[in-house]
């Protein structure tokens, strides 16, 4: 089965231990995700590619209970749409990254919970190609209440 990343240069893929690809300012050490050509903190144009930590903690989150309008490209319809949760995940002490969570039930999500990066099939195209995206999954098994 062919598995391709939804976009180049967002995460290392294929890879045994994939990581998100960010950038780090060579002047002030600010970290961005994804890579960008200049620093949002000091304005320097000396940015270097930087792989982000694979684990982190949940800083904040919400759920997405309705089908997003285009450009959402999951191939879902209002009838087939599966609600999901989105978190802002602090990776080490470097940066907070927005990403989908693999758990969607608010009762199973808590502030500060430990999460790790996973790559998952976001959409399957007609030719069977799986389009892969990134998400964060709980490190420890989660109970049904907080």
């Amino acid at each position, binding site marked *: 089965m062919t598995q391709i990343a939804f976009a180049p240069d967002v995460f290392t893929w294929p890879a045994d231990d994939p990581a998100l690809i960010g950038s780090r300012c060579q002047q002030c050490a600010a970290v961005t995700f994804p890579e960008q050509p200049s620093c949002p903190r000091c304005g320097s144009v000396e940015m270097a590619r930087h792989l982000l930590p694979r684990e982190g903690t949940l800083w904040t989150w919400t759920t997405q209970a309705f089908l997003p309008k285009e450009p959402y490209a999951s191939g879902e319809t209002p009838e087939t749409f599966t609600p999901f949760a989105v978190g802002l995940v602090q990776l080490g002490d470097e940066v907070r990254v927005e990403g989908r969570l693999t758990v969607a039930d*608010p009762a199973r999500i808590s502030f500060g919970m430990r999460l790790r990066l996973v790559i998952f099939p976001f959409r399957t195209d007609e030719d069977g190609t799986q389009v892969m995206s990134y998400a964060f999954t709980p490190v420890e098994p989660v109970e049904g209440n907080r």
Partner: protein
Amino acid sequence: MTDVAIIGVGIHPFGRFGDKSAIQMGAEAIRAALADAGVEWKQVQFAFGGSREVDNPDAVVGLLGLTGIPFMDVYNGCATAATALELTADAIRYGKYDLGVAVGMDKHSHGAFTADPVHYSAPSWYGDIGHFLTTKFFGMKINRYMHDHGISAQTLARVAAKNYRNGGLNPNAFRRKPLTEQQILDSKMLNYPLTNYMFCSPDEGAAAVVLCRADIAHRYTSHPILLRATALRTRSYGAHEVHATWAAVEHTPAPTVYASRAAYETAGIGPEDVDVIQLQDTDAGAEIIHMAENGFCADGDQEKLLAEGATEISGRLPVNTDGGLIANGEPIGASGLRQIHELVRQLRGQAGDRQVPGTPRVGYAQLYGAPGTAGVSILST
């Protein structure tokens, strides 16, 4: 610098108006503002017009009279109307003109706003994977705020119920049917902890303001309202903002805090002096956060203030007396001038059923939106 006065306000109701164009609504709002000021269109020396959907708000001149005046169009996200107001005021403050008009108009399609993420400096894949939603950001922001400061879902419902109730007193509002706190809590969860009835909707409408040099305002009106300060700010490094794939660990306050501080300093007015308040309530949580970001309470005090009814029309901190965005919807270009229209009515004692008691002397308006832009205006009698 010359002081600036507001001598006329006009509004086209907010809601849904079939085939009627935003330009027509804008022209009607300007006519209403001119009539309020006792000024004719041919006396207007210049104008700024704001819109998201209309490329050229200046096309209203085709309906008002082709007088050849300079008419500048602006778009600045949800702070568009504050931007049109500031630019109009600045042109008078710096002595270029004596009298001008700020107008905002819009006509949005149904449902949450969308666009190409690339225009917000976000990667195109950000939309592909379903993250390019303002509602998601507001859910994340208030969820963390509630966790940090002990705000309950009941308080979110209280905000929304108040704004629908105030909308019921406002003949120009979009949503005029009161809803109970329970109905609001029980409506569909859209972005946890925010339910359907806690959000405003994009809609249609227009509003306009006539401004002039304060020293000539008495030629037109016996009740000029002074525009004491306007301030606009974008986000600083460390703020967590709309349409961002990431946020810094380092923390800095939201752009509203910086705009608010600057406006208070310019006006020589503090939050304790403000009698009537209009805040950006994109959702019920935003109104709660903005109460603190604009200096009206400490973080967490909102839980008690809402329970006491402090933000009701009759309370000591009346917020969104005309129903705010939750009851009026958000035609982006017009929304902030709707706030100014309401403040002027309140400060003149002309707000009818929703008049703040006593003699309100100072009004405050705040806008906030993507990708991290805030506008604050302070008015006084």
